[in-house]
């Protein structure tokens, strides 16, 4: 026995040794002394390249696509935003519309015809394996971005064969675009997009839209390289193929791992809204929030989101707390009612449930990410949306007394004054831990303030979406984020009586009229007043929804990164950033 025991001990020790030796620190480049004829000639060290490299995280999972016509999610649009510049470009801090590839634009007196005048001399570029080079045509001439490229991009987005999800945006606004997208007309020249000359493109709209300059800058209406897409088909977005023209060029896309972009040396330096980039290279990792935060702490990422579980520690840490920023994001978290199901067929009952929600307690004790308690639906920061400065008392706030009073009023009138006579009430959320925590907190508030028991149900996401579209429960949860940062995208696109996004089954002609009128209003202050009136109907008078909080983003940034904080749903304009070590 003793021999065999010794043998096994030895093998175990060897194994442990093996594992430990493998854990040795990664080889660091050590200065190497080259001896030549007994004279030490030089010390070779890896040449320190004074390059500015920024390392960021895009979130877990592969970037779904880099094709402007197909993109639907923030990660894809982030890369596209850097590689392709729209006709207009939104200022990421103020959400104002600024010139992009169009130097200027004009609109006809009736508000329907928009003409964009493009900059000249911006070449298409690609990464050729060594460097960024200009794209040349068959004759060897440099290809410059023209109105034809924008026309091709828009038509390709609308083409039913492309199957682009966001084709609905141009289809909604531009004349003939919906018919072309549906396939009822097949001739693209019937669509209200015209190339007037190489550097002028004109859009004709179905109806006057005050903020079409916003729409024209969206990612699904960018210039696209027709020659490349016709040659490479679906594969034109891969490493080595991708042609673009914006401030950054895609150098490498390792699926599920990372994307590397390099500064475009051919991007001009005379466009204030899209300056020449200072950071030479950007590495976008695709990590989950917690591993990304670990990489940030290990010094391998320069910017990272803070996971919920780490927020308290970051706030308490003397160094990390200085690197912490809580920035607004143009999204709203809300509960909706199904107004056809009792007891919520009564607006007073709905308002009572809304007033009983202590939003401040939720953001401070449950979500903890510095979110702002929401008084209404259209997130402040959107164009023409009411703000807490302009409308401090608009909408709904926590008011337990008034909630009780309204609740008792309806209870006496309709249910004999007894809570037991109320029909069973169900609150449904999708099966995500964070949503369930919030729902449990609100369940408790309703119990405490109104004395009513609400049943909480959960469903898997896609099943939940189906439920909302077919038979929404009495109370349900959703969030809404901007497609374009204008109040209309929140109020008209969601709660218009005919909107597909409106799961409340509520509709009010007065509300519809207000948002229609606001859409045509070109004076932002006047539009804001109209939207404020509409909000008052939506969240207070008719109380079709319970706004809960306005989103924020909790990030840490290394002190040497000089950056801007985008309000455009996390879409960063990195050409304005710098690294100063």
């Amino acid at each position, binding site marked *: *026995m003793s*021999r*065999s*025991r010794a*043998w*096994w001990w030895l093998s*175990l020790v060897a*194994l442990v040794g093996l594992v430990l030796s*493998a*854990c*040795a*620190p*990664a080889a660091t480049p050590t200065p190497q002394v080259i001896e030549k004829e007994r004279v030490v000639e030089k010390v070779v060290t890896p040449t320190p390249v004074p390059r500015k490299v920024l390392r960021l995280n895009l979130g*877990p*999972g*592969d970037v*779904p*696509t880099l094709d402007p016509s*197909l993109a639907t999610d923030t990660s894809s649009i982030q890369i596209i935003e850097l590689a392709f510049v729209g006709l207009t470009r939104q200022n990421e801090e103020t959400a104002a519309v600024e010139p992009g590839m169009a130097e200027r634009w004009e609109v006809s007196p009736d508000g329907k015809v928009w003409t964009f005048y493009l900059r000249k001399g911006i070449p298409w570029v690609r990464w050729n394996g060594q460097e960024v080079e200009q794209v040349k045509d068959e004759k060897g001439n440099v290809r410059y971005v023209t109105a034809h490229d924008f026309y091709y991009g828009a038509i390709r987005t609308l083409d*039913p*064969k492309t*199957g*682009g*999800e966001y084709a*609905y945006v141009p*289809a909604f606004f531009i004349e003939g675009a*919906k018919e072309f*997208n*549906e*396939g009822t007309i097949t001739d693209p020249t019937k669509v209200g997009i015209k190339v007037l000359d190489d550097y002028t493109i004109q859009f004709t709209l179905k109806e006057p839209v005050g903020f079409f300059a916003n729409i024209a800058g969206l990612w699904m209406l960018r210039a696209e390289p027709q020659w490349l897409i016709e040659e*490479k*088909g*679906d*594969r034109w977005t*891969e490493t080595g193929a991708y042609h673009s023209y914006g401030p950054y060029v895609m150098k490498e896309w*390792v*699926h*599920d*791992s990372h994307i590397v972009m390099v500064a475009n040396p051919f991007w001009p330096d005379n466009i204030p809204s899209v300056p020449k980039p200072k950071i030479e290279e950007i590495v976008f*990792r*695709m*990590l*989950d929030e*917690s*591993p990304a935060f*670990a*990489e940030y*702490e*290990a010094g*391998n990422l320069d910017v990272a989101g803070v996971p919920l579980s780490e927020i308290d520690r970051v706030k308490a840490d003397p160094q990390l707390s200085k690197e912490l920023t809580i920035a607004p994001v143009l999204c709203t978290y809300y509960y909706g009612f199904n107004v056809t199901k009792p007891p919520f067929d009564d607006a007073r009952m709905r308002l009572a449930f809304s007033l009983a929600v202590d939003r401040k307690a939720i953001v401070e004790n449950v979500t903890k990410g510095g979110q702002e308690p929401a008084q209404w639906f259209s997130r402040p920061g959107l164009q023409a949306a009411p703000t807490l400065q302009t409308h401090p008392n608009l909408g709904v706030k926590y008011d337990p007394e008034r909630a009780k009073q309204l609740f008792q009023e309806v209870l006496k009138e309709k249910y004999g004054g007894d809570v037991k006579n109320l029909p069973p009430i169900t609150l449904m959320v999708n099966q995500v831990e964070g949503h369930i925590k919030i729902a449990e907190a609100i369940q408790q508030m309703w119990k405490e303030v109104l004395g009513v028991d609400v049943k909480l149900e959960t469903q*898997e*996401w*896609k*099943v939940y*979406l*189906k439920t909302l*579209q077919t038979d929404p429960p009495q109370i349900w949860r959703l*969030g809404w984020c901007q497609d374009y940062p204008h109040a209309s995208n929140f109020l008209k696109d969601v709660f218009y009586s005919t909107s*597909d*996004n409106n799961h409340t089954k509520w509709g009010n002609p007065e509300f519809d009229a207000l948002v229609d009128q606001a859409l045509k209003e070109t004076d932002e202050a006047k539009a804001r007043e109209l939207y404020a009136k509409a909000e008052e109907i939506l969240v207070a008078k008719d109380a079709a929804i319970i706004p809960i909080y306005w989103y924020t983003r909790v990030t840490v940034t290394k002190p040497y990164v000089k950056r801007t904080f985008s309000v455009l749903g996390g879409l960063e304009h990195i050409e304005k950033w710098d690294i100063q070590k």
Partner: protein
Amino acid sequence: MIRYIVRRMLWNLLVLWVITVITFGLMHAVPGGPFDREKPLPPEIKANIEAKYHLDKPVVVQYLYYMRDLLVPRYSPTLPTSLQEDALIRWKIGPGYFLWINLGPSYSSRSRSVNDIIRQNLPVSFELGVYALLVAVGIGIPLGILAALNQNTFLDYFGMSLAIFGVSVPVIVLGPILVSIFGVWLKWLPPTGWGTPQHAIMPSIALGLASSALIARLTRASLLQVIREDYIRTARAKGLAERLVIIRHALRNSLIPVVTVLGPLFAALVTGTFVTETIFGIPGLGRYFVTSITNRDHPVIMGTILIYAIFLVIANLVVDITYAFLDPRIRYT
């Protein structure tokens, strides 16, 4: 033996076919489709996309399309540029390309086909799985033997406590602990990523440790049973050295149950694990197993399940063949 293997292969093909039918049926029976969005798509947009991917056809027709793409080889003068016409096997033969096994496009990664995903991500998962299996076997078997040979001593209790620790500390706990200690605090290893040997160490250990505990317990239990067999007493009685008795007689027989679990374990480890990949940022296949289902990404669901099933049937076949070498009494005819 050969006849046995051929017969088993044919059965396995049948099993795989049944799996395609069941998976296809189930994923279409679940509520919600790949293009159901929080912001519902206008009907005409959805119709365009569904037409593009044949989703407007009846399920049976969709299945036939799928099986045609999967099984029927094609010969094309050029490599296809459409993701829908891509193929897993693309051999240059003569002037054109021999294309076979098209697993279809992905609905959520719209610039990638399932063939791309498997071509690029399966090797990563496979590599990690092999390392994890080495960790599992390398720690599990010696630990199990050590515990069995020293039953009811300190070594036994220590080894088995270690095993219970391994089973009860899942990757989701062990992974971040390893990252915090070796990646963030000591900075010995890169916290996330893939590509160099340093990158592989932490995930292999995190992934392999739980399985090593399982193997250790199995080995111990099985060895304890075998050691009490008559033929072991015979071997000892004829004066064989204890080491030879254990290695040549006891160990070989006691490994049969261990090898049995190694089959499915191998299949599970090499086709990727979601949690390990997420914690260590590894571009493997595991993430697609989970996200494809929540996204209702039908071709990815089919592709990943088929790959997993193929690994499983092959691993089981190899296990069955291994039995013959481990136990002289087992013969396949």
